[in-house]
């Protein structure tokens, strides 16, 4: 009976949507800037999973190509974001997302 169930691309899309919403939830409730960053990575990965699924559905490499760009942008974003977090936490250890204003000036 289980063997009769076929994994359709829709399953991947639902999984991607679920991962994205979990990432959104985490981004909204957590205050540790590092964990908020990890939630953003979660959302980016949900989107890449969706892109790869669409790429297979329409039989086109465009979806996979855009995943490469998403990877590059994610790497750049992490580098800059972690630099900001290092600067923030160096000024005030234990800083939360509410303390980003201390970097002003």
């Amino acid at each position, binding site marked *: 009976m289980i063997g009769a169930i076929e994994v359709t*691309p829709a399953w991947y899309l639902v999984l991607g949507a679920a991962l994205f919403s979990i990432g959104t*939830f985490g981004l909204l409730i957590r205050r*540790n800037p*590092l964990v908020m960053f990890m939630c953003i990575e*979660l959302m980016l990965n949900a989107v890449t*999973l969706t892109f790869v699924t669409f790429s297979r559905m329409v039989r086109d490499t465009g979806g996979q190509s855009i995943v490469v760009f998403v990877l590059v942008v994610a790497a750049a974003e992490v580098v800059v974001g972690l630099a900001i977090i290092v600067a923030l936490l160096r000024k005030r*250890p234990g800083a939360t997302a509410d303390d980003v204003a201390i970097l002003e000036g």
Partner: protein
Amino acid sequence: MIELVVFAVAGAACLAGAVGVVASSNPVHAALSLVGTLFGIAVLFVAQDANFLAAVQVIVYAGAIVVLFLFVIMLLGVDRVDNLRVEPLGGGQRVTAAVVALGVLGLVLATLASTGWEATGAVGEVDEAVPDINQLGEALFTRYVYAFEITSLLLVIAVVGAVLLARRVRREEEIVDPGQAERQAEVTERIARAEARAGGDGAGNGEQPASVDTTSFGASDDFVTAQRGLGSAEGAEGLPEAEGERS
């Protein structure tokens, strides 16, 4: 059948990792949960014939980015446990966040359902016989070559920005010799002690403070040699004490 098992296991790993990222009170545990999610997604990439992207996912994400996260956590020593029981803002912030997240989920699912779970639009021609990395390379270096070149610019800007942001700016007045205050206090204390000793001996010996000084030093030297003699019997433990006495 096999695809169902792969999807179930990898999907469960993804979801469990995602929940772990959100619910871990320790940032290190959150980072390790993120590895679970990224690995599960890499497996799902393989299940969808995106082998090259799966390899890149593991190398770049699980390898480089998560290690960068852990490095920052350990470097700054912020691996403290957050108290998750306290709502940061209060006033039903978590309820609102849950409503927003469920709203996003419902919106995406409704959009997908409205198309009948089918991708519409131009159907490209993918040759199943050609490996995915060949097709991806061809697409990147022909159709998307300008975008590809611009990403290199983006990476350079990111590196410059990171160096600029994380650099510690030193001004002249901020340069402080570490331990300078302690050394200064020690020197002051030693001068005071020597003066007190010289004053006490000078009272008994008359008007020759210089000779008093040499005799007191000679006495302490004798003490050190005596300590050394003892220390050779005791082993290495006596020696640092003797050195400390002399210095």
